[in-house]
């Protein structure tokens, strides 16, 4: 693996977009396109990244890019790939950038189909843990306790009562050629994974955690810090699945304080120490399961 800050293409392929200041999703898309290069053909469904990138005549993708239906990211990628093949094109990479709602909820069927057919596409889910473009509604990747407009923090029910869906494990369970998790707080790791995934002939999937200052209630300059902290405190993990084997890329020697991560975000403002303790217990149980099932120590 050779990509790093010195070898990365200096051209920008996602520039002038209208994302909020400090947007994690925009950073993920920008970096992935810089790794893949001008022959990336980007497919972006309804969601923040298409909303901020295609405000005609303000067109912010320098490479080929197209908006898909909300549910149809993976099917459109399949179609583009088939079309390019029919035209005899060789040097390209079809890449999708879909949100957590577009991936784990409405787009999961199309994604599952593409993996099943092993179409030669790279699907990247930028996970900002809610439907941000329509004003912060809960998705199945919204974490426990988070306040959204559809899971408000009331007197009896305090935010989202469900835990985050295990999207990485669901994708891996297809027996996909390659999939990985990442975070925009650890860009070197993310770049390595994009480079590897783009070189694979067949379906690959990367799930990158990408905080949203607007929806999470953090300051714009905290986005990268928070994306790092979520890994350090163990509420997110950096892993890969390749050739049927799971690998953990980073094992924090000691987790940092979950309470510190939670307390700095407005979406968790209503949580008491008891609920934070519960989130910590959920984390520990999750790691026990991960270690038992996938990552032998």
């Amino acid at each position, binding site marked *: 693996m050779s990509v790093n800050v010195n070898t990365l293409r200096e051209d920008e392929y996602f520039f002038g977009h209208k994302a909020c200041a400090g947007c994690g999703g*925009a950073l993920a898309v920008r970096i992935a396109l810089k790794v893949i290069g001008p022959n990336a053909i980007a497919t972006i469904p309804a969601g923040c990244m298409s909303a901020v990138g295609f405000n005609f005549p303000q067109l912010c*993708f320098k490479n080929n890019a197209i908006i898909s239906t909300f549910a149809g990211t993976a099917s459109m990628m399949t179609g583009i790939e088939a079309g390019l093949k029919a035209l005899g094109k060789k040097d*390209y990479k079809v890449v999708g950038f879909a949100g957590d709602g577009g991936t784990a909820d409405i787009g999961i069927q199309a994604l599952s189909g593409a993996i099943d057919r092993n179409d030669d596409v790279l699907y990247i889910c930028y996970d900002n843990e809610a439907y941000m473009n329509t004003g912060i509604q809960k998705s199945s990747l919204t974490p426990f306790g988070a306040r959204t407009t559809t899971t408000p923090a009331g007197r009896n029910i305090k935010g989202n009562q469900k835990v985050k869906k295990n999207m990485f494990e669901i994708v891996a369970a297809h027996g996909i050629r390659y999939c990985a998790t990442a975070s925009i707080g650890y860009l070197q790791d993310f770049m390595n994974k994009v480079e590897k995934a783009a070189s694979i002939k067949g379906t690959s999937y990367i799930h990158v955690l990408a905080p949203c200052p607007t929806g999470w209630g953090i300051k714009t300059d905290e*986005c990268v810090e928070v994306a790092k902290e979520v890994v350090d405190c163990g509420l997110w993990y950096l892993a890969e699945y390749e050739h049927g084997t799971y690998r953990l890329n980073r094992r924090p020697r000691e987790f940092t304080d979950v309470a510190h991560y939670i307390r700095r975000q407005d979406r968790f403002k209503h949580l008491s120490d008891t609920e934070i303790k519960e989130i910590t217990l959920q984390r520990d149980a999750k790691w026990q399961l991960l270690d038992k099932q996938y990552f032998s120590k």
Partner: protein
Amino acid sequence: MIRDVNEKAFTTLKNIPFAPAYKHTLVSVNSGFRTEKPVCNRDKCNGCFLCYLYCPDGVISKDGESISINYDYCKGCGICQKICRKDAIHMEKER
């Protein structure tokens, strides 16, 4: 190669260009997003380019041993200032 959609009528599959059918255009700047702007002190900067890497808007470019910032498109988020280990970037209030 970037081709304009009006350049030629596409009649067959072979005619369709393997390129964006529109021009990459930016008709308005994003500097209005900003209440503060990042300013780099080149004497403190060691050219690690972490700020260039982590800027969500891609407005920092490598400039020899240091960096330069495109203020037309910088939104003033402050990520570059936080990521800099050399304390070379500070935020200045916009008037």
